[in-house]
C-alpha cells in the first residue's frame, strides 16, 4: 500500500535557520489501515503528510504507493492516488465556484482534462444524493458558491470531494482543528462514515489524544522527526489518555509540549 523508507527532511539546510524535521522515517501502511498521527509541535507530522502528497520533496528516502515509486513525482501527478483535506477550510475548496462545480473538479481528480463539459447533468443528480448523506442541507444548494458555506460545511464538502473518486490513500491534516468542538465532532463522524463506506486507507493527523485513540485501528506518535510509538489493534483499543502521556514521557524522555494536545 504505502511504504515510506528512510525519509529525511531538513528545511533551510546550511543556514542559521537549519531545521531538521524528519530523521530517516520508516512507515508501512496496510490496505485499509486507518492510522491516526499524534505528536507535539514540530514533531514532523505535517511534513510527513506533505512528503507523501508531494507538496514537499524529501532530502533522501523513498515513498512508494502501491509499490510505484512516487518519491520525485510532482504534486499534481500523484493526485490520482491521494485524497486530501487540509486544516484550513478555505484551502480545500474553490470559494468562488459552486458546490456542484467543486465536486465536478474533484470527480476528475488525476484524469486528463479536456474540452468536454466540466460538469454534466447526470453528475448533479449523483452529487445531490451524496450531499443528502452528509445531512447538512447542502443537497438543495448545489449551485451555491462555496464561500457562503460555514467552515464545517466546507470541510465536510472537502471530505466528500477527497473521497469522491476513491483515493488509494486519504490524507487528513488536522482537518477539524479550525472548527468549534461540536462542528469538529460532526465532521469527524462524516469522516468515519466515508472511510468505512469506501474502506479507505487513511492517515489522519490530530492534536486531540482522545480522537487519536477513538478513531482508526492504529496510532503512531511522532516526536522530533521520528516515529516513537506505533500501536495497533487491541492495544490501541485499550489505551487511555493517561497511558498515552506516560508512554510518551517514557519513550521521549520529555514532557509533552503541545498545549493544544493537553488542553483538548
Amino acid at each position, binding site marked *: 500500500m504505502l511504504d515510506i523508507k528512510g525519509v529525511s527532511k531538513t528545511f533551510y539546510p546550511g543556514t542559521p535557520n537549519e531545521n531538521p524535521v524528519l530523521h530517516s522515517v520508516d512507515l508501512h501502511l496496510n490496505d485499509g489501515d486507518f492510522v491516526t498521527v499524534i505528536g507535539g509541535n514540530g514533531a514532523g507530522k505535517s511534513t510527513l503528510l506533505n512528503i507523501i*502528497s508531494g507538496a514537499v520533496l524529501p532530502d533522501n528516502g523513498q515513498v512508494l504507493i502501491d509499490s510505484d515509486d512516487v518519491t520525485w513525482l*510532482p*504534486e*499534481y*501527478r500523484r*493526485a*490520482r492516488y*491521494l485524497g*486530501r483535506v*487540509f486544516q484550513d477550510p*478555505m*484551502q*480545500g*475548496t*474553490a*470559494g*468562488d*465556484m459552486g458546490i456542484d*462545480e467543486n465536486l*465536478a*473538479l*474533484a470527480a*476528475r*481528480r*488525476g*484524469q486528463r*482534462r*479536456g*474540452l*468536454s*463539459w*466540466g*460538469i454534466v447533468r447526470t453528475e448533479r443528480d449523483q452529487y445531490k444524493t451524496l450531499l443528502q448523506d452528509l445531512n447538512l442541507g447542502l443537497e438543495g444548494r448545489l449551485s451555491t458558491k462555496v464561500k457562503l458555506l460555514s467552515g464545517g460545511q466546507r470541510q465536510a464538502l472537502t471530505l466528500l*470531494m477527497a473521497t469522491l473518486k476513491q483515493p488509494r490513500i486519504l490524507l487528513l491534516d488536522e482537518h477539524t482543528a479550525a472548527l468549534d468542538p461540536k462542528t469538529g465532532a460532526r465532521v469527524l463522524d462524516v469522516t468515519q462514515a466515508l472511510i468505512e463506506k469506501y474502506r479507505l486507507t487513511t492517515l489522519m493527523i490530530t492534536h486531540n489524544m482522545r480522537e487519536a485513540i477513538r478513531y482508526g485501528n492504529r496510532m503512531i506518535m511522532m516526536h522530533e522527526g521520528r516515529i516513537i510509538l506505533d500501536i495497533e489493534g487491541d492495544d490501541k483499543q485499550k489505551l487511555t489518555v493517561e497511558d498515552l502521556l506516560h508512554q510518551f514521557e517514557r519513550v521521549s524522555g520529555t514532557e509533552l509540549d503541545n498545549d493544544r494536545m493537553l488542553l483538548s
Partner: protein
Amino acid sequence: MFWIIQSAISQGILWGIMALGVYITFRVLNFADLTVDGSFALGGALSAVLIRSGVHPLLAVLIAMIGGLAAGFCTGFLNTKLRIPGLLASILTQIALYSINLRIMGSPNLSLLRIDTLFTSLADIGFPERWVTMALALVFTAAVIALMYWFFGTEIGSAIRATGNNPMMIRALGVHTDTTTILGLVFGNGLVALSGGLIAQQQGYGDIGMGTGAIVIGLAAIIIGEVLFPQTNFMLRLTGVIVGAVVYRIVIALVLKMGLRSTDMKLFTAILVALALYLPTLRGHARQFSLRRRNGHA
C-alpha cells in the same frame, strides 16, 4: 450628437474585446497582467503591416490574435517556469514587445489610408458606412463571448477558473497549475491582440503607442460592468464587460466634447479607475457610518 454616441458605442464594443481578455487574466486567473499594453499594440502592428502587404484583412486580424497568444505564452513561461512574479513577468514581456512592435512596423506609425480593411471592404459592397463598425464589432464580440462561455464551461476551463481561485486545491486534484496559468494568459492576450488588430483597421492606422494604458481601460470596463451587473451569471458578466467598455467610451466622448484634450484622457481614466476601485471600500465605510449613527455613536 447621435453620431458621436453611435461611434462611441462601436468603439466601445471593439475595445470591449480587449477588456474581455483582461477579464480572463485579471478576474478569472487573478493575475495582474500588464502584458496587455504590449499585446494590444502587437495586434495593431501585425494587423497593419499584414494588410499593407496585401494579406486579407480577416486573415491579418487572425494572425494578430496568434501574435497575442504568443505574447501571453511568454508572460506565462516567465511566471511559471522561471518563477518570476506575475506582475514583473508581464512588465518584461510588455517592454520587450515595445521593441518587437517597432521592428514589426518599421516605424512608430503606419497609415492604412486607401488600403482595404475589414471595415472599408464591407462598406464597399454596399453596407451602410456608418453602421459597418458597429455590425462588425457586434459579430466579433458575440463570437468571442460564445467562445469564452463555452471554454470556461469545459474541464480545462473549469480548471483555469479554479487555478485563479485556489491553486493549492486544484493542484491537489491533479491539475498542473503552470499549464492552466499559461493557458489563461495565452487566451487573454489573444483576445487583447485581436481587439488591437481590429481597432488598427477601424481607425486606419497602427501606432506604437496605441496600447499604452490599455490595461487601465480594460479594468475600467470590467469594474463599470460589475457595478452595472452585480451578482449575475457568467454570460451576463461577460456582457457586462462589453457594456462597461461602451459606457467608458461614451463618457470619454462626452468629456472630449466638453473640451478636455485627448491627451488628458489617461489622467481621466486613471482617476476613474481609482475611484471605481475605491467603491467597495467606500460602501463599507458608508455602511459602518450608518450603523454607528443608528446605534447613536456618531
